[in-house]
């Protein structure tokens, strides 16, 4: 037993443990919450990064919890996609946690100009709870991508869900509460549905380990039950992923939550739904995938195309910045779904790349929106005219991230879309490829409109007068880190894509 095998479990458990420590320590030391959270998340990040070469060398990492061999105990099974997601989750959580520090800070008026929107609304007592929930959320996402057991996956899925409902509602005022209720009304039934699907699957296989199930359903006598359970599971995950007709909770929840939480919701949590779909489709239903389930997956790719068009149209129609960004998420989920629905290695690489690229760019969007809102209080796109005169660096980060969302070449967004188009062309779906490109143009309309307002229009009368200026460095640095990450991923994609291709091939090989 080598030490590195324990890295994965400690990456998951440490934030969980620190999360329960924080309320205790907060009884005496109010300000220790954020440093502790940062410490735990950095540890997770370091451990995840250290795992990458190990997973790459062995193909996967299998860790038997409680030393029980897989079908009997719970297995942590990390493939390359999983470890990539772990690095992504822990890094973005860390970055956004740093951002939260000043975002949640209490009001500190300076010459009557600066005010922090959110800190004013939230009672000081909620701050340790915020970090506590935040850490549990991070831990649950890490656990969700790492696990190799389908019921354990459900447990972490629910853990993640509960934290995200609570974090959406944390301002405690009317609209966030209503958004959280709307979210719960969709997501709780979805979780029940997932449990039902797991129950059906269990009743015909008698196992909960994914690899074991995959082996057992290959020659199962209950083919139709398995197909139905697949549909049920996919619908359940699709709600969490906000796939087009089931997305109605998303615009409200993502726009009314505190901005760092919006960043996590859009950047990571909806991706967990997609990750669940990918995991279930390829790791569990691999044997059925090519034959009985092909039409379902194929239908998903058309749903995805509808999501792209719908999300883009709705984003163009919005006048509220955060709702626009939220609809953009609906659209980009369509892209990722497309990569998964085309059932092609290249398209899957594109989808996976888009998960990463969109996570960085969208988190950056929401952090920029958060900086602007907390500095100026303006929520509408029309109010952003001339924003660059007061907050040039924030606006520049927004512009850089929007290049990635639109898919202008040397950015991460482009690489993802490139592989998606490649995948759709090589499977003969020219129409879907055209939808990808058309979506890019529509993304350009709604992104560049905001950039244009920020940089090239004069502010309306009296607007931006009392705004003090640029956001503090601890908010700017995370924003820029994410924007730079989106750019760097576009430039250095050739380092990552071979790994992803390998991961996608190993996923598809299970067929």
């Amino acid at each position, binding site marked *: *037993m080598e030490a590195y095998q324990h890295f994965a479990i400690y990456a998951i458990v440490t934030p969980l443990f620190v999360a*329960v420590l924080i309320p205790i320590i907060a009884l005496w030391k109010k300000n220790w919450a954020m440093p502790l959270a940062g410490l735990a998340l950095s540890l997770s990040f370091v451990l995840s990064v250290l795992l990458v070469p190990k997973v790459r060398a062995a193909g996967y990492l299998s*860790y038997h919890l*409680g030393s029980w061999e897989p079908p009997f105990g719970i297995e942590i099974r990390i493939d390359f996609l999983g470890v990539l997601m772990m690095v992504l989750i822990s890094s973005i959580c860390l970055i956004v946690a740093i951002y939260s520090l000043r975002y949640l800070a209490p009001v500190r008026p300076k010459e009557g100009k600066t005010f922090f929107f959110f800190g004013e609304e939230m009672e000081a*007592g*909620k701050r340790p709870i915020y970090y506590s929930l935040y850490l*549990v959320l991070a831990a649950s996402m890490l656990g969700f991508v790492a696990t190799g057991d389908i019921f354990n996956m459900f447990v972490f899925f629910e853990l993640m869900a509960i*934290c995200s409902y609570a*974090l959406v509602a944390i301002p405690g005022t009317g609209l966030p509460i209503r958004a959280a209720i709307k979210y719960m009304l969709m997501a709780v039934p979805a979780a029940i549905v997932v449990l039902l699907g797991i129950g059906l699957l269990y009743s*015909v296989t008698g196992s909960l380990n994914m690899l074991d199930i995959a082996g057992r359903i290959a020659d199962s006598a209950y083919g139709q039950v398995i197909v139905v359970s697949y549909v049920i599971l996919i619908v359940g995950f699709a709600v969490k992923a906000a796939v087009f007709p089931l997305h109605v909770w998303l615009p409200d929840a993502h726009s009314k939550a505190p901005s760092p939480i919006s960043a996590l919701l859009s950047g990571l949590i909806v991706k967990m739904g997609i990750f669940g779909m990918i995991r279930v489709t390829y790791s569990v239903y691999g044997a059925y995938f090519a034959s009985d389930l092909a039409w379902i997956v194929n239908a998903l790719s058309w749903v995805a195309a509808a999501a792209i068009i719908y999300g883009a149209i709705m984003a163009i129609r919005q006048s509220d910045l955060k709702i626009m960004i939220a609809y953009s998420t609906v659209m980009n989920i369509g892209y990722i779904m497309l990569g998964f629905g085309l059932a092609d290695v290249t398209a899957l690489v594109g989808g996976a790349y888009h998960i990463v690229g969109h996570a960085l760019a969208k988190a950056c969007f929401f952090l920029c929106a958060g900086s602007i809102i907390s500095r100026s209080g303006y929520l509408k796109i029309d109010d952003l005219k001339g924003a660059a005169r007061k907050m040039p660096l924030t606006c520049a980060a927004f512009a850089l991230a929007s290049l990635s969302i639109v898919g202008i070449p040397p950015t991460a967004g482009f690489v993802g879309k490139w592989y998606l188009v490649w995948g759709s062309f090589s499977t003969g779906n020219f129409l879907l490829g055209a939808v990808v490109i058309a979506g890019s143009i529509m993304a350009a309309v709604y992104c560049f409109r905001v950039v244009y307002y920020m940089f090239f229009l004069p502010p309306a009368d009296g607007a931006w007068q009392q705004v003090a200026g640029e956001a503090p460095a601890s908010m700017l640095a995370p924003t820029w880190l994410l924007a730079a990450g989106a750019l760097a991923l576009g430039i250095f994609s050739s380092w990552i894509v071979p790994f992803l291709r390998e991961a996608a091939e190993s996923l598809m090989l299970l067929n």
Partner: protein
Amino acid sequence: MRKVLAVLCTCALAVLLIYVVTLLPAMGDPDNPTNSNVVPRYLEQGEQEAGTRNIVAGVVFNYRGYDTMGEVAIFSAALAGIFAVLGAGRRKIGRAFIDESRVKFSFVSGTAVVLVMPLIILFSIYVIFYGTDSPGGGFQGGAAIGAGVMLFTAAFGFCRAQERIPHHVRIILESTAIGGFFLVGTAGVIGGANFLTYAIPSLSAQSQTALRAAMLLILQFGIGIKVGVICTSILFALLREEETDGVEHAC
């Protein structure tokens, strides 16, 4: 319109689900996949491997202890979420509508509660500690504790109940379960096994059984306390009235 749509949706769902039911393996058949895969080992070797005669407890704490850790975390997260929604304030004073009830405090009910409370606590401790060998365990016992506190609150009012279990004590006790899991898990790792292994392989074989029993006890107790306290905290959080007039109301 909405009604028609709802009926249609539900009917479609019902047809699908009933259709699946007709395809499922017959219930209770010993040859079902559920009864022939995986489970025989639990039933045959569970007592020896997991150290519990109650196989469900063996599965919950040992074979699938990681799930239980997640479940405990969910419970904590739900409490944190309720605080996040309703306000966390470590206010010493809170009031609730039951304190302002016009029904007078009844001597009979008070006495009954005082008499029953020790029994409830005793019973829950029994359920917690005896859970490895009979139906029961930390969750069930904890729930019983919570029910006891609920009864006390109903009889004596929110203010007095709150005084008995102060906020900071509750906060500390809430973390016992996760802390227990973390410690037990880490002990296994330090001993050279995997996380959540209820053994320290580097120690002698004789001490393993005792060690495992001790670890199980720690966990059961931690979970029991934690569930009871969280039930209490949820109750208090939901009861606490919002102070709309800004005046602090003493008990």
